[in-house]
């Protein structure tokens, strides 16, 4: 091999600089390896450090939340300062009502917008809407709350559950739109073509073939969006406002778990502090149950996808 160099080419001998360079790389190899090892250790440290806050938060939530959790918490109304006991039954129901309202507003619009984005993929308007929905998704939730106040509370003159639901629903729109788009996007084109070839009209193809195929994924996306808005407090401060009493009227201020956690947390009373921890634990549990259901919905989709 070494003698096989063609006679025309110059001898392949490294220049002085190249030799110096390669010698240096070999000489510094030990140091470079040490630096590499150190930096990799730093990366591992970063990973540990990133997970630590989560462990701490959950640890405190569990230890402080469970101890103040009781059956009364779910069934009783809040008690005034000084009286022991009491629960957050109204806040739990309020949160569920607000979630329902938000879904009623956010889901149809979000799914519809997502269908548009998926069906008009390259269109200018679709690109614009996609970009704007990403931007809307990053909008501070308190701005959404103030918008809802200006839009729905100020003209009427009083806070209402409806305004809170609309604020939360508006926050859901961009999230639902983007996941719907993604899920409709992975439905095979052949399925759509088959339906069209069988004489289905376009709208029926979209709704009863494409949307139905993507439905499990869309449900997942919707649940993820619901899990995200369920814990929102800022948009509710000036809309749903909170309510010490039992209320399920959409026109009246309504209580919500995050609002109660907030007002109890900044209160000076120990009894309320422990109620705040219990409320936070229930809120997190609610969010996790929704997220878990969302995960199972995705699983089901993949399972049927594999069977087809």
């Amino acid at each position: 091999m070494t003698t096989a160099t063609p006679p025309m080419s110059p001898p392949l001998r490294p220049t002085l600089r190249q030799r110096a360079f390669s010698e240096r790389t070999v000489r510094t190899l030990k140091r470079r390896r040490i630096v590499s090892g150190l930096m990799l250790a730093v990366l591992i440290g970063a990973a540990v450090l990133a997970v630590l806050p989560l462990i701490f938060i959950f640890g405190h939530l569990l230890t402080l939340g469970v101890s103040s959790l009781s059956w009364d918490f779910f069934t009783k109304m809040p008690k005034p300062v000084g009286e022991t006991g009491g629960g957050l039954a109204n806040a739990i129901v309020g949160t569920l009502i607000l979630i329902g309202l938000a879904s009623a507003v956010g889901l149809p619009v979000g799914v519809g917008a997502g269908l548009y984005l998926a069906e008009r993929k390259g269109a200018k308007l679709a690109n614009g809407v996609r970009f704007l929905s990403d931007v809307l998704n990053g909008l501070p939730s308190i701005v959404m709350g103030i918008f809802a106040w200006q839009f729905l509370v100020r003209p009427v003159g009083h806070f209402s559950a409806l305004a809170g639901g609309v604020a939360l629903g508006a926050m859901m729109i961009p999230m639902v739109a983007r996941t719907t788009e993604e899920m409709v996007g992975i439905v095979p084109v052949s399925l759509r073509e088959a339906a069209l070839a069988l004489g289905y009209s376009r709208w029926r193809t979209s709704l009863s073939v494409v949307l139905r195929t993507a439905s499990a994924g869309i449900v997942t996306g919707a649940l993820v969006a619901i899990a995200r808005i369920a814990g929102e407090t800022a948009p509710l401060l000036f809309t749903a406002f909170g309510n010490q009493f039992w209320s399920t009227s959409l026109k009246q201020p309504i209580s919500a778990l995050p609002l109660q956690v907030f007002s109890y947390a900044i209160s000076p009373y120990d009894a309320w502090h422990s109620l705040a921890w219990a409320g936070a634990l229930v809120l997190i549990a609610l969010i996790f149950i929704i997220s878990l259901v969302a995960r199972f919905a995705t699983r089901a989709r993949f399972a049927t996808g594999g069977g087809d």
Partner: protein
Amino acid sequence: MTLPDGRAVVEAREGDGATLSIHGAAIGDRVYTGAITFFALCVPLLLLAIAWEIGVAGWPTLHKFGFGFLTSSDWDPVKGEFGAAPAIYGTIVSSIIALVLATPLAIGVSLFLSELAPRWLRQPVGFLVDLLAAIPSVVYGLWGIFVLLPVLRDPVMPFLRDTLHLDKTGLFTGPAYGPSMLAAGIILAIMVLPYIASVSREVLLAVPRSQREAALALGATRWEAIWGAVLPYARSGIVGGVILGLGRALGETMAVTMLIGNRPEIAASLFAPGYTMASLLANEFSEASSDAHLSALMAVAFVLFVITLIVNGIARWLVWQVSRNTSGRTA
């Protein structure tokens, strides 16, 4: 229609039905297209409505104080003096603290997940980091008040000030009460970490294998391969993730309101309480009695809206740019 032949009538009916259904399909298609176009238009309309409602309500203040609204630090609802500088300053400083703390951690954990972690560890660790994004802001605030603040008050703040002598920098001076710019920055760091990490992880996983292998084949150590070949490739995507995190930090309300101390003053020390635009809104909005005060708060909301709009626009654009490039390369 009264044909003697019964079959002919049936055929005619069938023909009718066919044209009818084709006609119906055309209408249905038009209705369907109209409906989804309308829903899609809701997104820009919603953004416009937000800008319009808040802008109009804040206009009297913006008009009266002009540019001084952004630079004056007098915030006195009683006298009718409104300057948003302390809130803007607090928003920016708390976000900077958050990014300074969260960015190295987020990049570290994403590099760990994309380059080092064994396969079985990837999913659970990634899941745990993502879980941070699922915790509501108000729960962070609660945890911050009862866990973070006491820890800051006792060992951490005096340690930084007296033991490390960082008071000479001017950033870590003054009494250690607890509620402070530093506390808000730390809680924000934990909150934006999952956003930066998830974008970085996605971008890092999109870096082609050949990029790493080429560097390793040239004799680079693992760290040199990461530093010299992987990170530069993913740089603009990571920057997009960081800016996305910035957008989150700027508008974060509840946790910050509960931890920052809510005092409309500009102080150099991070131990001093401060204010952010979002916490200003959360605190004063429902108590605003005069029209001038309300309008000033609306103006603050408008400024916050515009800032986050710009920041998010830049972030999305950067992330898009990267995903378009990488998908173009692999295709």
